[in-house]
């Protein structure tokens, strides 16, 4: 059982302050991830913990011992580091490099013993590097070399393992294999792991807790689930993201969404009839284009409802898995009456949401331009024994426009937008 305490450290390179009052604690069996943009001080933090860069203020404790008062060798017995990249100067074989991990445990004048060799071999088998034990590391690929370096760190038999973006050079399969191995060591051998990550999803998948660093200061710290929120990510990385629990893995999933900053706000207000995820991409595209959106009626928990919430689009709502009630229908009509265009997404129609088409009919009667997106699969989407098809045919006969693709839709909306602007312009003139 080890406790690592980072006790309010400040670090600088020359006069540039890189870390400011960083303070946290980790203990055996815990997997801590550090996330932050480039230059936020992640690597500096690791260098400081690994006794390479002495902080100007504060210090680091392993248990009760101040690491800057311990000997280098004492720290090396307890703490191993896997850096991002290791340039090896001479052509040592992989096994020779891994055996260097025994250095802190070997007296100065002893050669590597059989035990040392056995430990090295075991680490190499764990990391899948034993098959090139005899090859010079200088001839290995980036991923192979990194696995050798990880084997070297394991050969050190540390209680604490620090990793600086350890899987940057690895392909996805190796990435998962190595991270699974490290996670397993963390849980079975009660190793204390601190790893710097570039990839949110990898961090979310493996870390028990997370630290978000920005400009050398901790912005958020705590359990991964509570720390990795789109608010925190926005604060630290200045990007908009969707943070969701993935339905299959159950882990948090961070999806960056780009929002064009300089897109002009357009005058049209569009109401979207959708559901089951058919509206989500449209919502994103249309908001990016600068249109104002509303949507409904959507069932709560529907993917489109979630997307609307994330994009802050107002919706008319209905309880989960329930048919549209009069109340919701009325709310929807109210919403539609305030919009300039109605768009019907290629969604499934069943007894539950047929009233949305009824709403569309009303809108068209009131003269609101209605656009139907057709993808040629209406038969498969109609679960109302033709009622929905009838509605749509009627709408078309009464002047609704059909489009076949998103680009066609955007093109059409563009003309409407221009017309709308001209209309308001002319109205203002007299």
């Amino acid at each position, binding site marked *: 059982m080890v406790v690592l305490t980072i006790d309010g450290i400040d670090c600088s390179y020359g006069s540039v302050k890189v870390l400011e009052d960083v303070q946290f604690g980790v203990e055996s069996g815990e997997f801590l991830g550090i996330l932050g943009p480039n230059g936020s001080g992640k690597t500096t933090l690791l*260098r400081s913990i*690994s*006794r*390479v860069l002495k902080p100007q203020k504060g210090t680091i404790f392993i248990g009760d011992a101040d690491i800057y008062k311990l*000997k*280098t*060798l004492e*720290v*090396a*017995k307890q*703490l*191993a*580091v896997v*850096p991002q990249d*290791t*340039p*090896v*100067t*001479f*052509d*040592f*074989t992989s*096994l*020779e*490099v891994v055996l*260097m*991990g025994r*250095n*802190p445990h*070997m007296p*100065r*004048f002893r*050669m*590597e013993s059989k035990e040392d*060799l056995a430990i090295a*071999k075991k680490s190499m088998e764990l990391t899948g590097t*034993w098959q090139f*034990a*005899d090859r*010079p590391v*200088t*001839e290995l690929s980036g991923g192979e070399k990194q696995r050798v370096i990880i084997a070297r760190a394991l050969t*050190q038999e540390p209680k604490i393992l620090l990793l600086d973006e350890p899987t940057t050079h690895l392909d996805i399969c190796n990435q998962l294999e190595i991270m699974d191995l490290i996670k397993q060591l963390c849980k079975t051998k009660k190793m204390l792991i601190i790893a710097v990550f570039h990839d949110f999803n990898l961090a979310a998948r493996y870390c028990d807790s997370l630290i978000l660093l920005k400009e050398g200061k901790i912005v958020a710290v705590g359990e991964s689930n509570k720390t990795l929120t789109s608010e925190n990510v926005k604060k630290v990385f200045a990007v908009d993201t969707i943070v969701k629990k993935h339905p299959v893995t159950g882990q948090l999933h961070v999806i960056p969404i780009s929002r064009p900053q300089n897109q002009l706000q357009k005058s049209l207000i569009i109401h979207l009839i959708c559901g089951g995820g058919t509206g989500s991409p449209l919502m994103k595209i249309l908001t990016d284009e600068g249109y104002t959106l509303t949507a409904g009626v959507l069932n709560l928990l529907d993917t489109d409802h979630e997307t609307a919430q994330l994009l802050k689009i107002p919706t008319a709502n209905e309880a989960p898995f329930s048919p549209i009630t009069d109340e919701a229908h009325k709310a929807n009509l109210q919403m539609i009456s305030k919009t300039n265009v109605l768009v019907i997404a290629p969604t499934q129609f069943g007894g539950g949401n047929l009233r949305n088409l009824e709403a569309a009919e009303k809108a068209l009667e009131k003269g609101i331009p209605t656009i139907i997106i057709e993808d040629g699969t209406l038969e498969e989407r109609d679960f109302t024994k033709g009622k929905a098809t009838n509605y749509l045919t009627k709408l078309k006969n009464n002047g609704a426009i059909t489009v076949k693709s998103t680009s066609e839709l955007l093109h059409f909306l563009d003309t409407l937008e221009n017309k709308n602007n001209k209309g308001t312009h002319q109205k203002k003139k007299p």
Partner: protein
Amino acid sequence: MKTDSEKAHLKRVSHWKLYILILIIAFGLVLVLSLNLGYAHIPFDDILKILAKQVPGINYLVDSSDITQTAEVIIMQIRLPRVICGALVGAALATAGVIYQGIFRNPMADPYTIGALTGASLGAALVIVLGVGVSLFGVNTLQILAFFGSITTVLIVYNISRVGSRVPVTTLLLTGIAISLFQNAIVTFLKVIAEEKLLHGLTFWIIGSLAPTENWNNVWSILPFIVVGATISYFFARDLNILALGEDQAQHLGVEIEKVKRILLICGALITAAAVSISGIIGFVGLIIPHLTRVIIGPDHRVLLPTSAIVGASFLMICDAVARVIMGSGEAPVGIITALSGAPFFIYLLRRKRKGYMA
């Protein structure tokens, strides 16, 4: 059950002693061969008898009645000290080369790059040009100034490069090169203003020669420095291995890098200074021998340091032998021989082994 890789590794390590043994035998052969070369012809069996006569325990077995007094004096008082000086200087330069290449993690490094050689030549040039060469207890002022010139230069380079408690190796290399150029300029200036008759001696010294080493005083004056420096550096052989992974990682593995660097730099400087103080500037040995040995033996400094020393010693003995006979009556400076033979061989090595550490 042991797997192949384990066996291969154990085999490689167990071969170290064999390599050293073979190299020592080769060294012995070169030594005797070198003693054989010279103006007066002394046959091999006589040389062996003379040598055996000196060894307590077996000297009574040797029948030395047919050996002339002159032959014994030539071998023992003239040729042997010179050959041993050659061996010591060769071993010293090769060892220093291994140390510097290890610390700098740069296959280009050698005693030249850190200013150890130009420092010595500046010291020597001052003594020669200013004509203050006097002998003191068998050691002359030229030797003393060359020695201190070399040591002082390394210390200056080290201190200039220091940032707080750290000495970044790139800064160290660049400072070394800058100081070397600076000192070279002074030496060149001294050459320009030197009197004609002094100029020859200075030029000869700078090219490097073992001709002035034909007495035992030279051996005794450098032996302690080289033995002590080489032994201490051998204590840090494993640290040099680990330094190949970079300084941060070496520290993570328990190496106190700044301390180790300081000790090794001083060892390298001592060894080099002692060597050049009697031989002048002999180039190429410090650069080429570590490479050559690494190709044969591998990069592990625990075996690379001793083997490089033996290979360096043998190489310089051969070069000196060639220098003694190649011009007939006179003698060629050995530094020319090392460069003439070393450069093409070095290029051959580079061409043959393009991959790996030389890439």
